[in-house]
């Protein structure tokens, strides 16, 4: 069985280089997706993203990738902004409809502390998920000013100065992480390895 990880390349995918490198380090094969028909050539999808929710949705549409992504049935891993756009709706620069794979809203982090939340922080796991299997030190690198607000599909929370926010989500084969596994040393590479191995063995 083939097992190719597609990384969606759109206007806000500035971190694609690092993600590709980390997936390769985790033993995966990568195809960068620039055109809608390429979704057929991959087995799983990674949705990166740095920038704003509104720009991300706009860029997916500009790249003609939105429809193929919305109707996709393959496993998806959204990273940072890529996780946020899996939600129903986002409130960054106005109200923008998201991909709606996860019933949630994206709002500014409500905390009395420095924003962006930037640095290594720990996951408090609520639900076991194959995505986090075998990762002993659950410290990951965060770099964000918005958070996903929801009450379902939460697999971990993270505490920032007394405020707990959703740091990873899963709805069937849709996964999202607020942190950057590609910037989180061995723990991040192990997470990619877990994603690569989902549905295999």
């Amino acid at each position: 069985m083939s097992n190719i990880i597609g990384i969606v390349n759109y206007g806000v995918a500035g971190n694609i280089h690092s993600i590709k490198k980390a997936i390769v380090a985790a033993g995966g094969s990568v195809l960068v997706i620039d055109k809608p028909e390429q979704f057929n050539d991959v087995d799983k999808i990674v949705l990166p993203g740095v920038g704003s929710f509104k720009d991300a949705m706009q860029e997916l549409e500009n790249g003609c990738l939105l429809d193929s992504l919305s109707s996709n049935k393959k496993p998806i891993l959204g990273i940072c902004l890529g996780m946020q756009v899996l939600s129903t709706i986002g409130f960054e620069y106005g109200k923008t409809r998201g991909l709606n794979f996860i019933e949630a809203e994206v709002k500014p982090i409500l905390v009395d502390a420095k924003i962006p939340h930037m640095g290594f922080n720990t996951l408090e796991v609520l639900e076991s998920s194959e995505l986090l299997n075998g990762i002993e030190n659950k410290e990951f690198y965060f770099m964000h000013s918005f958070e996903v607000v929801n009450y379902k599909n939460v697999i971990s929370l993270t505490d920032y100065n007394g405020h707990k926010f959703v740091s990873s989500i899963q709805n069937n084969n849709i996964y999202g992480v607020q942190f950057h596994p590609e910037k989180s040393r061995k723990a991040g590479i192990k997470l990619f390895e877990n994603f690569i191995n989902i549905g295999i063995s």
Partner: protein
Amino acid sequence: MTVRIIAKLDVKPPYVVKPVHFEGLRKMGLPSQMAKKYYDQGADEVMYIDIVSSLYQRDIIFEEIEKTANELFIPFSVGGAIRSIDDISKLFHIGADKVAINTYAVQKDPTLINKAAEIFGNQAIVINIEAKRIDNHWECYTDCGRVQSGKDVLEWAIEVERRGAGEILIQSVDKDGRNRGFDLELSKKIVDSVDIPVVVASGAGSLKDIKEVIEYAKPSGVAIASLLHYGKVTIGDIKKYLKANNIKVSK
């Protein structure tokens, strides 16, 4: 939340150099090799600052930056001689996660900060401030403490935050390379003046100096250069010491 321990590489391409009080330079090694060493020691981030290209009005040298990025699975910030959106775009393309802007924003056009933050997100834009104490205040300098700007450091810090910077790196022209401790007052004033994360640099001469600045100023990160380059301590030593002193650091 953990305090970030950041390895800072001051580069005169192609070598990491050790500036002594922002003047004389000593070659320390290649950026890619040193970055890998600090990554293996457990650094939370690596910063690569080209300290000469801006002054000599040279272009950014991308090759060694890309090589360095390829060694890392932690965030990588790059600064020095950044003058345009095109420069920034190229740096992200070869693996930088953040860019640190100084001279161009201070001397030429501060709206580069606004434009960059809008395009790349504020988390990706670091403003590097070189502060020199003059009487009762600090003034912004550029080009490794060589060029005076007339701008007040605290006012500039607030301005860059308003323009969309996501982080400030504060360096002290007076303390840099002297290994006699940080400018504690400056560090605290900056941290207290803005709502974005602040990384403090310049002056670490011992583990105690690092602990002191964290306890006094509560920065989001501490950038260490010569203390690491001379092999006096490792990132592991720093983290162990801070942990023993009840300061939270990543494992």
